[in-house]
């Protein structure tokens, strides 16, 4: 089985200032090295000053992803030498002395797959390197530190994805969520970056780094699965390694650099005391937050009697749960939930389709009502749904347009039944031995009416004609 895990880096672009200094969080509008100060440049004598809102916004993300959140958060130093790191260490988080990162053990559903969130942490972004000329000929590296210290939230998932499609869907859901929480603008260049790890049945885990956009992430994962499968087919061992996504050639390339022993010498960042986040603060944040997935699910089950499975699927997707909330008028909740999960989710299974869809909650309310009162068959309802999604017209109009109303006129139906009985002489004959054949004949009538025949009336009339009780 293919297993894919993700490490998402998301800048908190909606913040005014950087994580540890008052320089601008959105560095994009600046000339190189003009959005810097002694703190983000690590000038001797400077001290990090933690941004309160960064902690709050990161905690919001953790809550929205159903994570557990700590009573105290702690920061650590990850030590390594690199020109984009002004201090030659990065201030980040680690759960070394209990759980002190922004969040852990979260979950989010993507369709009917549950993706577990391992950990969420708050950290600083490094500066940006600019290379002059081709790599081999480059005499030096140029550094722009404007980005250094930008608040970054790292979201690490368990390897719960099985397909690139799920990865894409997850990223879409996550983007929506971050936008919705007003913490980030995922559309900004470089605001969202990701690394992935991919393994297929029986193979080692391969890390893919350097993926610049979510669009490429899906491609990179897809490429990597195909690459690994092709190796497996040829019985070539898949080695554990780090690969880079080559943006130009759209392939993953083995990171040739010799695996220098990763030795980050993590230790506590003493310049930032552990920050207590009390229940009052958490409750305050909760007010600004869309209802959590788990509490939504619980509400669906307990208030509306929806089965846990359906509630799970429905609650974990913001788009469909919003649709549900709008369509549901307290008396029809179960039917609405079933229609969304069995019919609508399949029709709107990509973000593009959802964006283009004209379907509103009212449409679903009406559809369920029409089916219940026998004004339309289930089969016709499906056709109507297709139309609604396309043009957003009112249901009554669509039924008229497509002539989807039930054929429940006895005379009309009797005429059609007569035709069918004529054509299906053998079946009529067989029905004398086997009364179940009548269902086959109902089907034939349905075919002729393109699903519009009132099924109960048809059965009744057929039985009358065939003398079955």
């Amino acid at each position, binding site marked *: 089985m293919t297993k894919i895990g993700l490490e998402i880096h998301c800048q908190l672009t909606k913040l005014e200032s950087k994580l540890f200094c008052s320089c601008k969080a959105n560095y994009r509008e600046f000339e190189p090295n003009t959005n810097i100060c002694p703190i983000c440049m690590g000038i001797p004598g400077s001290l990090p000053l933690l941004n*309160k809102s*960064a*902690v709050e916004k990161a905690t919001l993300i953790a809550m929205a992803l159903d994570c557990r959140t700590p009573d105290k958060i702690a920061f650590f130093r990850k030590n390594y030498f690199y020109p984009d790191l002004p201090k030659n260490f990065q201030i980040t988080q680690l759960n070394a002395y209990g759980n002190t990162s922004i969040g852990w053990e979260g979950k989010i559903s993507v369709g009917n797959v549950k993706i577990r969130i391992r950990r969420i942490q708050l950290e600083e972004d490094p500066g940006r390197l600019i290379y002059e000329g081709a790599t081999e000929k480059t005499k*030096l590296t140029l550094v722009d530190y404007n980005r250094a210290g930008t608040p970054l939230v790292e979201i690490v998932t368990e390897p719960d994805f099985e397909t690139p499609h799920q990865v894409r869907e997850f990223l879409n859901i996550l983007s929506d969520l971050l936008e919705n929480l007003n913490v980030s603008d995922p559309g900004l260049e470089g605001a969202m970056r990701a690394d992935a790890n991919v393994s297929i049945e029986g193979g080692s885990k391969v890390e893919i780094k350097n993926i610049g956009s979510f669009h490429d992430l899906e491609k990179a994962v897809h490429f990597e699965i195909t690459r690994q499968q092709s190796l497996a087919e040829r019985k070539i061992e898949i080695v554990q390694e780090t690969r880079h996504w080559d943006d130009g050639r759209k392939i993953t390339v083995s990171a040739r650099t010799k695996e220098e022993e990763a030795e980050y010498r993590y230790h*506590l960042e003493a310049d930032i005391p552990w*920050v207590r986040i*009390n229940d009052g*603060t958490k409750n305050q944040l909760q007010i600004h937050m869309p209802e959590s997935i788990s509490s939504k699910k619980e509400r669906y089950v307990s208030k509306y009697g929806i089965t846990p499975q359906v509630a799970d699927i429905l609650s974990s997707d913001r788009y469909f749960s919003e649709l549900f909330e709008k369509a549901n008028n307290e008396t029809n909740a179960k039917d609405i939930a079933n229609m969304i999960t069995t019919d609508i989710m399949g029709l709107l299974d990509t973000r593009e389709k959802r964006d283009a869809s004209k379907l509103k909650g009212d449409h679903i309310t009406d559809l369920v009502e029409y089916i219940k009162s026998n004004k339309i068959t289930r089969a016709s309802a499906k056709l109507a749904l297709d139309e609604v999604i396309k043009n957003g017209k009112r249901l009554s109009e669509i039924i008229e347009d497509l002539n989807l109303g039930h054929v429940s006129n006895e005379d009309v139906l009797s005429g059609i039944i007569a035709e069918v009985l004529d054509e299906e002489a053998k079946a009529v004959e067989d029905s004398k031995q086997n009364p179940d054949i009548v269902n086959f004949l109902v089907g034939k009538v349905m075919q002729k009416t393109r699903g519009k025949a009132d099924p109960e009336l048809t059965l009744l009339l057929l039985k009358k004609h065939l003398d079955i009780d």
Partner: protein
Amino acid sequence: MVSEEEIAHVAKLMKIELEDHSSHIKRVQKMLEYFDILDNANVESEEIIVQETDLDKLRDDKYVPYDKDLLKFLNSYQGKYVKAPKLN
């Protein structure tokens, strides 16, 4: 005793040239040997104690542009970029 190779390896990670400093190795070894005393402290079960603060005491999220030209204090730059040696 910690081997010379181990110390040399760490020195490399810390970007310290040991060529001219081989005399350091013996001294470092002696210091590390002294640190073995920590094994007798019997502290395995201790919880660590750290400084704490409250969320409201932290800096408010406000953009305040730095009012000095920091590039002036930096010694090696090209145009508007800081110059670093090439990688790899």
